[in-house]
């Protein structure tokens, strides 16, 4: 399949934006946590799950999505949010706990809600899948060709919510796509010790639907199978499962000592950086030049800088605002 230059560039940009956003976040998170790490300290406290390396999963499918399509993401949500065009300023501000954040500082990094672009995420493994089923049901009820994509980790494919949701979505022929990011790990537990099948695409058989397996974090293949799955869903062809073998460059959360994984693993993964892969492909195919990419990178860096600036300069909420917004 040919991927248009426009789409390739879009994927590159979103991947790069996610990566730069997270590199900056990594630093911001460590502020106030040195020399002694304390999870509750600094401008960005609490848990922090970064997605460096997993970008292809997000961009390969979101490139096919519209604003009206729904995305639900798990505890590791930044790459999805960025690929779904979540407001970067408000998202950053939320993670800094500011009043200008998506949730006025109430949600935080694991609970980002941007109804403008129909994005949400949450901290409970697999819990976002039913929400996507509901969005898909709403699309069907409205007679729209909108789809719902639910991103989960490979660990989440063993949770009951996965099964119930896929059965329901298949039964009702809903436009749901579950993307399983297999980064080999559920915190410290390797996939081989959590999932009884080598890859979760085979579980599609349990729901009479189509399952895809994307190997080796391939952004192009992810693009391809996602296109097929999204198109089928839009046409009323029902749900799909896409599993992508991806890479977790960092710890489960920041501060994770990672004693459970081989010291060789990350360096070898880093060699296969998917962002470079797209860039190199485009340069090889003469679709863009090094210079083009430098310009793009600079623009993205500026955008991210703005977002962080906005977040840092924004006001903290007033303490008493904690009592507001329980109900609308």
């Amino acid at each position, binding site marked *: 399949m040919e991927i248009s230059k426009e789409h390739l560039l879009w994927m590159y940009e979103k991947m790069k934006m996610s990566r730069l956003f997270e590199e900056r976040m990594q630093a911001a998170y460590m502020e106030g946590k040195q020399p002694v790490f304390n999870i509750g300290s600094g401008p960005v406290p609490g848990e922090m799950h970064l997605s460096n390396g997993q970008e292809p999963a997000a961009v390969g499918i979101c490139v096919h999505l519209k604003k009206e399509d*729904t995305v*639900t993401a798990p505890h590791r949500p930044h790459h999805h949010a960025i690929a779904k065009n979540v407001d970067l300023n408000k998202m950053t501000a939320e993670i800094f706990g500011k009043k200008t*954040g*998506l*949730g*006025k*500082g*109430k*949600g*935080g990094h694991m*609970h980002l*809600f941007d*109804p403008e672009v*129909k994005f*949400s995420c*949450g901290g*409970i493994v697999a*819990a976002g*899948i*039913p*929400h*996507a*089923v*509901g*969005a*898909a*049901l*709403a*699309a069907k*009820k*409205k007679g729209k060709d909108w789809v*719902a994509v639910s991103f989960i980790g490979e660990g989440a494919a063993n949770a*009951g*919510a996965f099964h*119930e*949701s896929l*059965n*329901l979505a298949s*039964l009702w022929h809903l436009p749901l796509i579950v993307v399983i990011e297999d980064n080999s790990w559920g915190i410290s537990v390797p996939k081989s010790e959590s999932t009884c099948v080598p890859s979760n695409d085979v579980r599609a058989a349990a729901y009479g639907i189509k399952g895809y397996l994307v190997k080796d974090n391939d952004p192009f293949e992810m693009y391809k199978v996602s296109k097929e799955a999204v198109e089928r869903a839009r046409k009323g062809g029902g749900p799909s499962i896409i599993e992508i073998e991806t890479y977790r460059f960092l710890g489960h959360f920041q501060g994770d000592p990672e004693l459970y994984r081989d010291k060789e693993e990350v360096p070898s993964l880093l060699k296969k950086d998917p962002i470079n892969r797209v860039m190199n492909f485009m340069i090889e195919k003469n679709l863009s030049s090094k210079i083009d990419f430098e310009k793009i990178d600079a623009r993205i860096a500026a955008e991210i800088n703005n977002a962080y600036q906005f977040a840092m300069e924004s006001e903290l909420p007033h303490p008493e605002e904690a009592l*507001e*917004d*329980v*109900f*609308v």
Partner: protein
Amino acid sequence: METLTKTKKLTGSKAMTLAIEQEMERDDKIFIMGEDVGTYGGIFGSSTGLKEKFGSDRVMDTPISETAFIGAAIGAAAEGFRPIVELMFVDFHGVVMDQIYNHMAKITYMSGGNVKLPIVLTTAVGGGYSDAAQHSQTLYASFGHLPGLKVVAPTYPFDIKGLMAAAIRDDNPVVFMFHKTLQGLGWMDQIPASFGPVPEEEYTLPLNKAKVVQEGSDITIVGVQMMTVAAVKAAEILDGSAISAEIIDLISVKPIDKETIINSVKKTGRLLIVDEDYMSYGITAEVAAIVASEGFAALKAPICRLANPDVPIPYSRVLEQYVLPNSHKIAEAAKKVIYS
């Protein structure tokens, strides 16, 4: 309320379905999902006749996948629908509590008020007919404890209708607990309280108000659903002993209508709370604590609590009847409060 003249005598079930029917006619964003809510009309008559009227697109039977379909109600509500979703027995909440309390209840807050979830979660509560430990609970407090949910448990058909309409119109998740015995179903105990006058017209009642169902001066008895009914009966017994009981029907499990309760205790000076739920951390605890902290000066005697004594609900009738409060136990307890 005064202007609503045309009333019918309806069962709790009919009052509930009438409210849903009127709301569904008014607003096509409302739909119903749940196990056996379609052709069967709800195991406890919560949707009788609605599939026939509105079709299977708006009254949807689901698989036994509570996490998926109650979670789907959240996703659909975020998209502008107003789902009514049924958890068949409240006893099953444990398979889906995460969706209810971590998501349905918190998304509005976590989104800073940017996402609204107008969902009514209906669920059948209550025992007394030997359905044993996994099908007889009320679990009022399990829902009342957790923030982000409005929780109502109406008793009489009039309140059932008005509160259901209000629950549907509310833009927040409302847990609507209906008591099996108060549905007035043909195959359960027939009790007068499950049958009563209900205006045909549409009306709503506040979700957060308790109601003084009977005035009195010697003791305040707070109950909810079947315990309100039992308290009213107990008041008759007490009448014989020249004790005048004021009966409050809690209706709203969360938030609790402090004002109505405290005002009553200011008048009577004595408080007895009765609950079909488990004693510890239940309604008797919360109401007692409210009065002991905010209405303390009015208390002339220790507060008395009557509830299931922290045991699973046993099957055998003699055992179940032993753990459930009833009008006689209430009358006894009230006398003790007054005479000791």
